[in-house]
């Protein structure tokens, strides 16, 4: 564990880079502050908001898993265990910053402004789920492993060329760091010194394949070295550590000091997706229990309770609030008008070519 000193944190963070491979932690699993110097300057309200979002996300995830089992969601990748990585990193962004998520990163884009009912529509395959409101700076989740890394370099290049003080932020799992697109994207971002931040949520498994079998790299943060950009490894179960380092690298990118890579060490409690993998076939229950002891919510709750900022009553209030909001969102998704084949064809081009007009007419006729 590395201890960093206050004012010149930026320089020191830069110095530790990936080559030393230390994991940055602020709170230990019992919620004790172990790196006082790094503790972020967040207000009580902001600290409470971080906790509210993590509890909300956990409860929403449980509900989504249950909806998925009932066949009421088309596709869903569970997030429990990864709340600190997801919520802490998004919390460090400004509204104008742009998120390019992977399929597990629905919480970040919802907390960045995507209405919850549209997230559910996305899961169900309704095109309205992908119609992002104008003032929400996110892409829909990337399904093709690694493609978003290159896109992030491109979005950041756009910001730089237009002189906008915005940062492009992307998320990928440990598995995705084996893709060619990953190396090409971080290299491009480094070469052009664009305002991009690459968050690797290392949840230990690429579906069934453990990270030690995916690479011989000592850490995934080391992969930044080849691209010549700083890489940091953070305790991804520690929301304060994720927030602090993320804030640092995002602001550095915004100030024109180039991209960075952040590896968050985390764990997914559930399966890869709800489409059928059984995690007991590739990992042990003991391992899961060990990680559950590191739970991001427990750790942060203890920290807040010690400060007198969180109580059981607060927690229950958020749980109730979440249930209500999720129910409302599901209702709104259910009430959204069903799509038709002609609509699908209409979304192909600005002006439909003749062969699609012809097909559209055929489907309209068949639908009568």
């Amino acid at each position, binding site marked *: 564990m590395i201890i960093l000193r206050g004012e010149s944190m930026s320089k020191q963070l830069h110095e530790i880079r990936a080559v030393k491979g230390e994991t940055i932690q602020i709170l230990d699993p019992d919620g004790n502050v172990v790196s006082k110097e790094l503790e972020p300057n967040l207000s009580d309200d902001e600290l409470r908001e971080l906790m509210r979002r993590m509890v909300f996300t956990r409860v929403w995830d449980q509900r989504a898993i249950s909806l998925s089992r009932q066949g009421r969601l*088309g*596709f869903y990748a569970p997030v429990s265990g990864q709340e600190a990585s997801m919520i802490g990193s998004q919390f460090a962004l400004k509204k104008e910053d742009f998120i390019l998520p992977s399929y597990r990163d629905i919480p970040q884009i919802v907390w960045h402004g995507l209405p919850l009912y549209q997230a559910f529509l996305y899961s*169900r*395959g*309704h*095109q309205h789920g992908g119609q992002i409101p104008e003032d929400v700076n996110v892409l829909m989740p990337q*399904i*093709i*492993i*690694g493609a978003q890394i290159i896109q992030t370099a491109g979005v950041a290049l756009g910001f730089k060329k237009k002189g906008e003080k915005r940062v492009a932020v992307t998320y990928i799992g440990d*598995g*995705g760091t*084996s*893709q*060619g*697109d990953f190396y090409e994207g971080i290299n491009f971002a480094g070469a052009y010194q664009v305002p991009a931040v690459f968050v690797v949520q290392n949840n230990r498994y*690429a*579906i*069934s*394949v*453990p990270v*030690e*079998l*995916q*690479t011989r790299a000592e850490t995934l943060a080391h992969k930044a070295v080849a691209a010549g950009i700083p890489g940091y490894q953070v305790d991804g179960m520690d929301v304060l550590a994720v927030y602090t380092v993320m804030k640092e690298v995002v602001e550095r990118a915004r100030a024109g000091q180039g991209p960075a890579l952040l590896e968050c060490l985390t764990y997914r409690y559930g399966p890869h997706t709800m489409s*059928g*993998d*059984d995690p007991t*076939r*590739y*990992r*042990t229950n003991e391992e899961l229990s060990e990680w559950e002891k590191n739970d991001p919510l427990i750790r942060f709750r203890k920290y807040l309770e010690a400060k007198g900022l969180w109580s059981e009553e607060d927690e229950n209030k958020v749980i109730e609030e979440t249930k209500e909001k999720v129910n409302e969102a599901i209702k709104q998704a259910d009430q959204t008008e*069903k*799509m*038709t*084949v002609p609509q*699908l*064809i209409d979304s*192909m081009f600005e002006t439909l070519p003749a*062969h*699609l007009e012809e*097909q559209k007419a055929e*489907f309209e006729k068949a639908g009568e």
Partner: protein
Amino acid sequence: MQRTLTFSQAINEALCLAMRKDEKVILMGEDVAGGAQVDHLQDEEAWGGVMGVTKGLVQEFGRERVLDTPISEAGFIGAAAAAASTGLRPVAELMFNDFIGSCLDQVMNQAAKLRYMFGGKAKVPLTIRTMFGAGFRAAAQHSQTLYAIFTHMPGIKVVVPSTPADAKGLLLASIADDDPVIFFEDKTLYSKSGEVPEGEYTIPLGKADIKRAGSDLTIVAIGKMVHTALEAADQLAQKGIEAEVVDPRTLSPLDEETILASVAKTNRLIVIDEANPRCSVARDIAAMVADKGFDTLDAPIKTITAPHTPVPFSPALEDLYLPNASRVLEVVSELIGDESLKAIS
């Protein structure tokens, strides 16, 4: 002796037989073993791939021959092609054919061209197994039907089985073949059962199969569309119309002779292909018959395909997207001028 296996079991059996026979046959792909390095699961059944098709093979052949790869398609498809050129017979699994974009150069410019560029001296006995097709609620980037792309490439063979027995025989032939083969598995067929002969047998690449004989019209169908064609043929038979259903089984090489002979007998042709229509195999077959069998035709050739759009994720739209038996009956009614067929469609 015959017994019933699912499509998935038939593929698994073919892989198993090929691996027992020849230790140069190895499997590579994402999660093809599964349960890697979890000690207490080493001796149990790992999960065997995202659809369980390779289940059990790691127990028999070990992790030296069943390789869980990192998520890097260009890496393991390219490495498999190069390993094939050294004399191995790798069977690489591209989990979804939609992921070909991540490794297309290794297939199109490398595997498919090595023999030619070495003046016929290099051999690339590579088999790429891949999953394709709509109807699985897997959305636009996991549901495509991309065999036409590879059929267009000169140096690679393209196989699309429609039944468990064909899948086994064609996969054994693909693995034994000394050139690269891409073997397309329709994910909606995995659970479909059929009689499968025991033991080792091969079905020659480039030989079509007449799945149903008939004299009134020819329906050429690919993959699961063979079953759509058979369903339509049964309904047509009730009206006294006998359709002949031809399954090409391999798209490259294509058994033109069987298709042309069938059309010469029936004088009418419908091609059903669930891929997008432009530059599709359906239109390729239609063009081939117009070119070489025009004199035998009594009516225009009809193709039935998906619309020229991505596959919708919405279940209701996805069902409308795929060609089905009623669409076949409508087209037949136009072709034969029998309006009453629409009533049963």
